[in-house]
Every structure is written in C-alpha cells, then in structure tokens.
C-alpha cells in the first residue's frame, strides 16, 4: 500500500507493506498518531467503503481486494475487527442480543443464531451473563463481549485495535488465550498495540510504523531477542517487562508533612445491603503517590468517587486535611471540558483559579500548535494531559486519577509520569486507579490492592510483577 487517507491530499498512511500467512499473529506498533488505527480501517475496507477515504495500493485478504469493495459493502465475512473502545461498539442492551445481531446480519436462522450465540458467549467466559444489561458488565467483560460479537462467524482475518487498553491483567490473559486459540485454528491475526510485550511470545512478525510509514519489520525470533527489544524503547512501543528503576525510593515522601487523607472503616454500596467494599482504612501523606489496583469491577472508581465526595452511598469516614478537596479526574477526559477551543478552555481555568494562561500553557507542550482546536479533537494523550493540567490549576491537596495511562504510548506515558512526579514533589498527593504495571513500578510510592471488597497494602513493585505474571508477559 503506497498511501491512504481520509481526505484527498491528506496522507495518513505513506507506505506500508506486509504479508500474513495462515496461523500467524502480526503485531503492529508505533507511537500515538502513527496511523495504526487507520491501517486497520484500510485493511478492513472501512476506510474506502464507509468513511469516504482513499487508498493507493492493494490490500488482499484471502484473495479479495478489500479496498475495492462496492460502496457500503465491508468485508464482514472475511474480517472481524474489534475496535479500541468497547463503549463505542456495543450496540445492543444485552450480550445475547449483541452476538445475535451479528449472526442475524449474516443470515443465521433464529434457532441456530441463539445456539451459536450462547456457545460463543460461553467461549468468552460470559455464561450466565447472556441477559445482563451491558451497562452492568465490567470493563473486561465488555472487552470480551466485543471480541465475541465481532467474530462469532469465524472470520479468516481477525484484527484487534489496542485490545489490552483499560482491561485488568485477568482480562489481558483472556485476550491472549483467545489470540492463541485463533492462531492454532489457522486464522490470521493482526493486533495494533502500544503494549506489544503482552503478545511477543505469540507473534510471528512485528511491524513498526512511524508517521504512516513502515520503518522496520522483525520476525518472531528477532522480536524475542532482548537486545532488539531494548533498542525498540525509543519507538514509543512498550516492549519490555517492568523493571525496578534505580532512582526510585519507596516511601521517600511518606514522612514529609503529615496526613492529607484519612479513610477509616469505609463501606460503599450501590444496592442497600450489598456492599461492594467494606472496612477500607488507610492514610495518605503529603506528596505521596498511591496506586489503587484490583480487577475490573473491584470498586476502584467507586472508592475514588467516595473520596471526592461524589459517591454518597457510603458509611465510615473520609477526611481530607484541608478545605481544598480532592480533585477527581475522570477516565474519559471529554467530560471535563467546558469550552470549544483549547485557548478558551485555558482562559476559563485561569478565570476560576487565578493561574495565568501563560503558566498553564507552559504546562502543555502542544498549546501553540493546537490552541484554536476544540479540546475534543486533541489526541487521547493530549486530552489526558489537559485534564491533569486543569486539575493541577485548582491546587488541590489530592488529585484522584482514574486509569490515566489507558491508550497512551510510551512517550506520552513518560511525559505524564514526569508531570505527576513534578507536581507531587511540590506537595500534591495522588491516588491513581490503574491496571498498568508501569504505574506501580515507576511512579507509585505505595499500592493498595482492592479485591473481593477488601483492601490490603502491597509492595508496588511486587504488585507490578504480579500483574504482569497474571497477564502472561513474555
């Protein structure tokens, strides 16, 4: 493929070629904005047949040129594409309806469709949840549902866009197991991922892309060489297992300036008589960074919202040291924005907080280039960055971050870590809800594991190793 784009004269893909054989996993990595998702949309035929884009070149899947399909006819029977965000692709109210929708589209008779759907849901560990409302599913369950609903008909090529984003290590393990099964059954699997370390042992090929161009291609054997992996660090792709950074000192900030947050015997619930957590007690010191880990649905977000005062169905005590409350930063950055350009957004923050636009814009390396754009059109990493800058401007004693690293490439992740460290060194404390082992190994001073409604303090680095071993990192 020589080039491809959404609009004429705008090249997103600038030269990518590769070949996949039956039973092969091809990994595609690259920094944010390098064209990875566009590549998937091109291969699936969506770019040309649905989005009005163009392609100069040929993409052949099992003998069919997918970029020359008739209008609105995508390659469903050949290709199963699982999009990045499960929230945006679940269309029906229950898992059963979701899978049935695909099967009925493809002409299955109702009886066969129901039988197949139930069996497919079972394969993805969703037995017993067939008729549960999708909004009651955890993040990991939604991810598994998207896998089930995109591929119940056994397509030849299965493509996954960031399948590990926002899911817990148990969910990552499930995705790995599924990918391994697909390979064994002879499917071609194409995965676009920042955290390719989760799939290195299964891959036959790794394509590194940058600014829409293929810059390197490695075989599976090459990929499993530690020297090569080390050399790939600069590319924005996370290739290595977590390691303990030499400069990090646990508990370095613990004895600094006293307690910022005290949580005592906290119990929270959604339905009366069915607590989702109980007996939660801990303290947080000024400038300390605490990571909150645990499976999807263990109550991490609820705990953050309880501390911020937004989840009211709680008993026990949450005490923030000063009148400057804790500031909760949502996992979806878009909820935080009020204005229709970045410049106006910062002016609004300046007006409310007294922090000047100049100081705020210094915190945002992309400000000059993007100031007239709506905040919603910034990249995911930039939007996360902006929400953190907004939170910082309100000078809270404590910032609560909900999954701040989901979907960030390694460069953005390092920048985010450095921002958080700088702010924490000036005395702001952080509680970070996360599934990301790198937060534990490189950033957190302490960690709390939330599991089965209980909380226990764990060593951050050991917790990081535990999460990676559950996920099955090579």
């Amino acid at each position, binding site marked *: 493929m020589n080039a491809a784009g959404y609009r004429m004269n705008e090249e997103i893909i600038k030269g990518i070629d590769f070949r996949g054989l039956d039973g092969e996993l091809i990994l595609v990595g690259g920094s944010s904005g390098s064209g990875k998702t566009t590549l998937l949309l091109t291969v699936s035929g969506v770019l040309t047949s*649905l989005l009005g884009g163009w392609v100069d070149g040929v993409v052949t899947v099992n003998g069919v040129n997918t970029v020359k399909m008739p209008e609105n006819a995508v390659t469903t029977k050949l290709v199963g594409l699982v999009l990045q965000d499960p929230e*945006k*692709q679940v269309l029906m109210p229950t898992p059963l309806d979701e899978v049935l929708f695909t099967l009925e589209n493809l002409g299955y008779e109702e009886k066969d469709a129901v039988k197949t759907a139930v069996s497919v849901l079972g394969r993805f560990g969703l037995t017993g949840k067939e008729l549960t409302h999708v909004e009651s599913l955890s993040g990991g369950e939604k991810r598994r549902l998207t896998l089930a609903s995109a591929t119940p008909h056994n397509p030849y090529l299965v493509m996954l866009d960031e399948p590990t984003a926002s899911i817990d290590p148990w969910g990552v393990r499930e995705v790995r197991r599924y990918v391994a099964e697909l390979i064994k059954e002879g499917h071609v699997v194409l995965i676009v991922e920042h955290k390719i370390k989760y799939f290195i042992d299964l891959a036959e090929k790794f394509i590194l892309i940058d600014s829409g161009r293929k810059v390197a291609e490695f075989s599976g054997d090459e990929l499993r060489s530690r020297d090569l992996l080390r050399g790939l660090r600069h590319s924005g792709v996370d290739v290595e297992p977590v390691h303990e950074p030499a400069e990090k000192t646990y508990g370095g900030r613990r004895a600094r300036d006293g307690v910022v947050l005290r949580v005592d015997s906290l119990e929270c619930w959604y339905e009366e008589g069915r607590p989702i957590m109980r007996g939660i007690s801990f303290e947080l010191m000024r400038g300390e960074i605490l990571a909150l880990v645990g499976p999807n649905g263990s109550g991490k977000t609820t705990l953050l919202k309880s501390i*911020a005062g937004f989840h009211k169905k709680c008993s026990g005590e949450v005490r923030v040291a000063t009148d400057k409350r804790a500031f909760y930063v949502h996992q979806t950055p878009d909820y935080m*924005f009020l204005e229709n350009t970045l410049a106006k957004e910062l002016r609004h923050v300046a007006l409310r907080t007294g922090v000047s636009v100049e100081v705020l814009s210094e915190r945002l390396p992309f400000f000059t280039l993007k100031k007239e754009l709506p905040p*919603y059109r910034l990249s995911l990493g930039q939007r996360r960055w902006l929400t953190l800058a907004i939170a910082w401007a309100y000078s809270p004693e404590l910032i609560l971050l909900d999954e701040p690293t989901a979907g960030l490439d390694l460069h953005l992740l390092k920048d985010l870590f450095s921002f958080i460290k700088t702010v924490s060194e000036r005395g702001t404390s952080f509680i970070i809800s996360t599934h990301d082992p790198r937060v534990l190994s490189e950033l957190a001073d302490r960690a709390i594991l939330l599991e089965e409604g209980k909380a226990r303090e764990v060593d951050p680095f050991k917790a990081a190793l535990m999460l990676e071993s559950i996920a099955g990192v090579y």
Partner: protein
Amino acid sequence: MLLKYRESSLFIYALGVSVIAFVSNSVGALLIPSLINGALGLMLGSKRLPMKLLLTLLVFSTWGAFLNGLYFHNTGEIVVSTRVLTIRSGAIESFLTVNLRFFLIVGATLTMLGLVNIRDLIKSLERDLRMPSGLAFSIAYAFRLFPLLSRDLSEVLIARRERRVGTNVINPKNLRSVLLPILNLSYERAVWGGISAELRGLSFRKSLKGRPLGPGDLIIMLALTVQWLISYLVPLLV
C-alpha cells in the same frame, strides 16, 4: 394470556401519538392523551430509561416552556401580577400546552421502550414495515443511547462540580457547556457505532417475511385511534 403484537405496531403507536402532540394546540385536546401516556410511560419505561435523565429533560422543557410563554404568548387576562412580572392567561396556556406535549411524546416513547427489545424492534421495522436495515438500525440504536446520555450527564455534572461551575441545568448560561461534551461524545459514539454495525454485516441483512396482524396489534391501533378522536372531539365540546 400474553397478547402477541408486532414491535412495529408500538413504533407506529408512539409515532401516531407524537403526531397528536404536534398537531393539537389546546390544553383540552392534549390533556387526556398526555395523562394516559405519561402514566403508562412512567409505569412501563422507567426501568429502561433513568429517571434522572427524564427529570433533567423535564426541567429543560419546563424552563423553555415558561420563557416561551412569557415572551411570546403573554396575552389575555392577567392571572398573576407582581412588581416585576405580569403573567397573563395566554402564557399559562402556552406553558401547559408545551409541557403536555412533552409528557405525551416522552410517555409514548417510554411505553414503547418498556415493551420492546431493540433487536426485535429492528427486525420488526424491517420485516413488517419494509424499512431499510440502515434506517431501522439507526432508529433502534437511538433508543440504546438514552441510558448512555444519562451516564454522560451525571459524569459531566461531577466534572462541573470539580471545576466550580454551575450544575444547575435550569440556568441557560450552563446549558451550552453541559451539552457540548455530551454532544461530542454522542457524535463519536454514533460514528463508531455505525462502523461497528457495518463491520458486523448490517448491509448483509436479509429481509424476513412479514407477520400477520394479531389481536395485540389491533388493540394498540384502537388505543391510538381513540386518542386521536379524543384530541379531535374534546376541543369541539369544551
């Protein structure tokens, strides 16, 4: 005995009742259908659609109706008079009319949502009304978005509290910045939802054979006709 009905009959019912709301412009014509559908909708549909979202929509509607009545229909006899405000009968009538329309449309929609499953509705619109699959899917998917809108709204309000800006949705000053993130997210969801549907073979859907009308369908159509008659006759009798 469970009455069988086509999901598309309920869709026609909701559409037909909504037409009453648009065509009728007197309190008398709207009152009875509004009460019937409002009560039915709350009873059947409140589990499908979060009450918080409904209340917010109601607040928007009430506030809009009040301003509309005050600025554009404040004529007739004086009903309330204070030093700053004089409210005349025209404003009250306009306020009531708009709110009754709202109850009527929301009530009928909730009634339908309470009784159908989205996937069955798509099938019924295609097989019974011969609607193109893309259109049937878009209509049904719009109903799926309601609970998501409700969740978006509560998260936006949390963010606004954090940023110390108003959370009072009655205040028109807040309206734009409340709607901005919700509309952006909904737009993105709609685009990716459409892509997801096409990727999963929406264009391949085959049209199924239509089903004959059953007693349930006749009752639904009768209920619609009765309400049409009420809305036509009541203004003539009053």
